[in-house]
């Protein structure tokens, strides 16, 4: 045990780790928001609710069908993604020609509906979800104890983020996607089914949120309001990073998680607000956001 700036290393690294975990969720969620915004020009207010649905899906799959964590990691995002596709077909596709504000209002309404239904059904208190056996336990790194599940969350989220970045920036499908973001009419003229791509993009962004939810279930309790507070922080993250860049969204997410973790060590009172303060400063210095393309 040693000290850094008068803080015991265990506390410092512990908070750093928590920061990285939060950062993983910020990155996953802001990435999903950025992908959706790029294609649909909509800020998906339902994102937090969809993250919560992912966690609930994992919980319910285990409770009702005995389906374990590993399977839930695939099935839950798939289920919530399908619901996302339905939402796009039923509601969002009708808003394409309208002011983006209406997309925000509609997805806000959907978030209220989903949260309300879940609260009616399962109450407001958190439900426990155990981490899988294989990931239980801690490793002693010498300078700190590292719970295996937390390390897994960071690694998995990083992997998923980078895979998404690769798929969008480096593959053929991704190039269609980027082209359709720039000029949907032209891409359609080349014989690519843009509305279907929009639909699937929304489903994919939503599935990312749900995946985050499954990963969060063993760390935080599963509760209906777990998404609504998180999504506001993620909005601030998105404002700081700017939604122009995929890599930017990932980096900003992790970085802000770490900053938040450090704030908990050095000035705990501000840990809830530090991200918002950073947002205000970024708005003053670089209104377009750190990775934004234009003001």
């Amino acid at each position, binding site marked *: 045990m040693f000290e850094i700036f008068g803080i015991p290393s265990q506390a410092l690294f512990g908070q750093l780790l928590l920061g990285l975990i939060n950062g993983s969720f910020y990155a996953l969620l802001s990435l999903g928001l950025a992908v959706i*915004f790029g294609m649909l020009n909509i*800020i998906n207010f339902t994102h937090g609710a969809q993250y919560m649905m992912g966690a609930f899906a994992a919980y319910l799959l285990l409770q009702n069908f005995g389906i374990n964590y590993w399977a839930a990691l695939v099935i839950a995002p798939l289920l919530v993604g399908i619901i996302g596709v339905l939402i796009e077909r039923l*509601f969002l596709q*009708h*808003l394409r*020609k*309208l*002011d*983006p*504000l*209406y997309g*925000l*209002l*509609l997805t*806000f*309404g*959907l*978030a*209220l*509906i*989903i*949260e*309300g*239904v879940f*609260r*009616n059904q399962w109450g407001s208190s958190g439900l426990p979800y155990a981490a899988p056996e294989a990931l239980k336990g801690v490793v002693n790194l010498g300078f700190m104890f590292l719970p295996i599940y937390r390390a897994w969350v960071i690694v998995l989220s990083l992997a998923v983020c980078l895979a998404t970045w690769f798929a969008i920036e480096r593959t053929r499908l991704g190039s269609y996607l980027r082209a359709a973001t720039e000029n949907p009419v032209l891409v359609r003229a080349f014989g690519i089914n843009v509305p279907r791509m929009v639909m699937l993009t929304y489903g994919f962004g939503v599935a990312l949120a749900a995946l985050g939810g499954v990963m969060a279930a063993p760390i935080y309790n599963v509760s209906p309001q777990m998404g*609504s507070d998180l999504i*506001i*922080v993620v*909005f*601030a993250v*998105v*404002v700081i990073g700017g939604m122009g860049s995929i890599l930017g969204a990932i980096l900003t997410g992790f970085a802000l998680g770490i900053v938040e973790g450090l704030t908990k060590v050095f000035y705990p*009172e501000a840990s*809830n*607000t530090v991200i*918002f*303060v950073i*947002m*205000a400063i970024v*708005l*003053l210095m670089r*209104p*377009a956001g750190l990775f934004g393309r234009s*003001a």
Partner: protein
Amino acid sequence: MERALAPALLTKDRGSGLSLGVAFVAMIVLFAIGPFVVYPVFLMKALCFALFACAFNLLIGYVGLASFGHALFFGWASYASAYAAKAWGWPPELAVVGGTAVAAALGFVAGGLAIRRQGIYFAMITLALAQMMYFFALQAKFTGGEDGIQGVPRGRLFGLFDLSHEMTMYVFVLVVFLAAFILIYRIINSPFGEVLKAIRENEQRTISLGYKTERYKLLAFVLSATLAGLAGAMNSLVFQLASLTDVHWTMSGDVLLMTLLGGLGTVFGPVVGAFIVVAMQNYLAPFGQWVLVIQGVIFVVCVLLFRRGIVGELARLARVQL
């Protein structure tokens, strides 16, 4: 892209404001009869929220700026006036003015930050700033944390009128509401208001015509925040309570719902919307979380089926301005 955020695009001069006059008189008559038919506290609450929604509409309906953080101004004005009245023993008129001034100052800061980004970002920034101040209210000593500031004295207005009497309080709330309502009407029909509408329709073009749109937007934001604060201060006096509910994001959602339901960019829409939503929250309270679901459904239905809102649709059908 179609600018659908312009339900007031109805030709302005048709009916030449006669419809507005008639509606205004009808509204006053209803408010005069109201307390003899309905519980006065309910009416006062609805009036406070009607004022809140009108202030909000000034921004979203006439400048096209969608704030998701107006609870910030409502809630903090509510805290400030409650604290001034209780801890410092300020008379009600000074407490309300003080709370409103706090909202104006916050509006200046939050507005200055938020107008640096457009469109969808504006909504996210206002929401994030409001959430920051929510946490501040949660942690600060003087707000009383989870308990809020309770037992705020209503006091004697100008040392003359005893506001603990429900009818006196009602008249006070009504007078403040009507004054603010007329002020907002004057603002949107002034040359300044015309520039705001021009910004809503086409900001680039307004800039090219030589208007410093940033200043107009900031002033509109501050005005909206100030009047939202006035509503919050009055509300804390009515309920003798300022609490975390007033600064929570759900409050921002509520005022958005009221305005959307009543009709964005209509004169009377926010009032109608506020009365409906407050009545709904009152009478559906026993159904618990279903209120949340119903509110969500109203959002979805409004966005998909009638974006003009109730008053906007009525005005369109009757081909008048309301």
